[in-house]
């Protein structure tokens, strides 16, 4: 039986080599420990890096943990190198993604009735980018495909899990807040 210290240290090494989010279950199985304990250890590590103000941090995505850089250091990273950035999503892709994120599992028909326009191509593109996936079939007529978001969606938008999405009723305010804060920052810089 390994000590907690050993296990936590091993988790750090494992996350480091793995690069991608490391599933808590996979990590727990290696030490034959309880999932809950393993999760606790990851949370402790996350807290340690944060409280020490480290330049690398640990983020949680869908019951997995991953090392990443401290967000405020992006300016310095860009001075060092220009990491390849992914192309940003289009407005229509964002809208479709928004509907799927909040209404999943959802059919293409429902999405189209909300947006008032066809969206076959957009859905295709989002599947190709692995941001959404088929999650089953509706019991309705024709048994249409149901769509849901993927783990990569959470990763790309920095969400721990789908429940972390703000309440849809509050979204209007949140977006306004962000815009106001942005303006504030700009005026300070001037």
């Amino acid at each position, binding site marked *: 039986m390994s000590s907690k210290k050993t296990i936590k240290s091993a988790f750090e090494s494992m996350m480091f080599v793995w*690069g991608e989010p490391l599933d808590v279950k996979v990590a727990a199985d290696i030490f034959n420990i309880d999932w809950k304990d393993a999760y606790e250890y990851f949370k402790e590590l996350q807290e340690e890096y944060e409280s020490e103000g480290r330049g690398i941090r640990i983020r949680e995505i869908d019951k997995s943990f991953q090392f990443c850089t401290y967000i405020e250091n992006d300016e310095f990273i860009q001075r060092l190198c220009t990491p390849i950035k992914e192309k940003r999503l289009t407005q229509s892709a*964002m*809208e479709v*993604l*928004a509907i799927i994120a909040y209404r999943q599992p959802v059919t293409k028909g429902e999405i189209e009735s*909300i*947006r008032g326009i066809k969206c076959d191509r957009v859905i295709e593109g989002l599947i190709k980018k692995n941001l959404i996936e088929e999650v089953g079939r509706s019991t309705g007529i024709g048994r249409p495909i149901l769509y849901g978001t993927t783990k990569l969606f959470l990763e790309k938008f*920095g969400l721990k899990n789908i429940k972390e999405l703000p309440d849809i009723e509050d979204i*209007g305010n949140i977006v306004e807040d*962000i815009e106001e804060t942005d303006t504030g920052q700009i005026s300070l810089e001037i």
Partner: protein
Amino acid sequence: MVYKVKLDVFEGPFDLLVYLIENAEMSIYDIQLSEITKQYMEYIEDMQRRDIVLAGEFMILAATLIEIKSKMLLPRNKFEEDEEGFEDPRSELVEKLLEYKQYKNVAAYLQEQEEINNRIYVKPKEDLSIYTKEPDVFLNLDLIQFIKAFDMFLRRRKKIEEVKNNYTRIKRQEMSMETKIEQMKRILTSRRKLRFRDLLGGVKSRYNVILTFVSLLELIKLKSVKVEQKTNFGEISIIANEIDTQQAEGA
């Protein structure tokens, strides 16, 4: 008022409509339909003039707007007006627009999140090929499978036993020597001379051959028949003894 919208790419008819309503500083709950329908149509005409391929959905909404507009122009009958359940023809559209606006906000929120997240970097997976060459062999055992396998075996064994039991029962039911002798005697009354194989009656099972042979020996002992075999493994000829046949006939 001639309204000029810049030729943004709208994400659909609702997107355009929301834009027009917000630009005209109208309340979404109280759309001035004549005004907004006019602007919407102007916009669509403008698009067509510029040879922009419009999706059919833009036309559908145009038709919907005109329909609502005409409904609102119709004089309302008094009875309807007094009814609490009177429905504004705009309400369905308003509901749809509100829902759409909500998701537009979500899209904006996601855009913010994407931007924030783009400032965070992760590292690629290390080259793990040194570890992946020889897989660990892991014995997968499952109690349910184990029990199933054993049960299958027990069932199979039970079946074999049943078959075996049936087999012995059938054996017991096979012809006895007494019956066989009676049968042979009957044959011999009609045909006084015959070959051994004629007595088998077409059944060449080991049991039948032995039974027939033993019965034949019994008949020889009883002096009912005479038997002749000219060569080793050759044909056995059987000749009935007259007296005996007569006896059999008499019996």
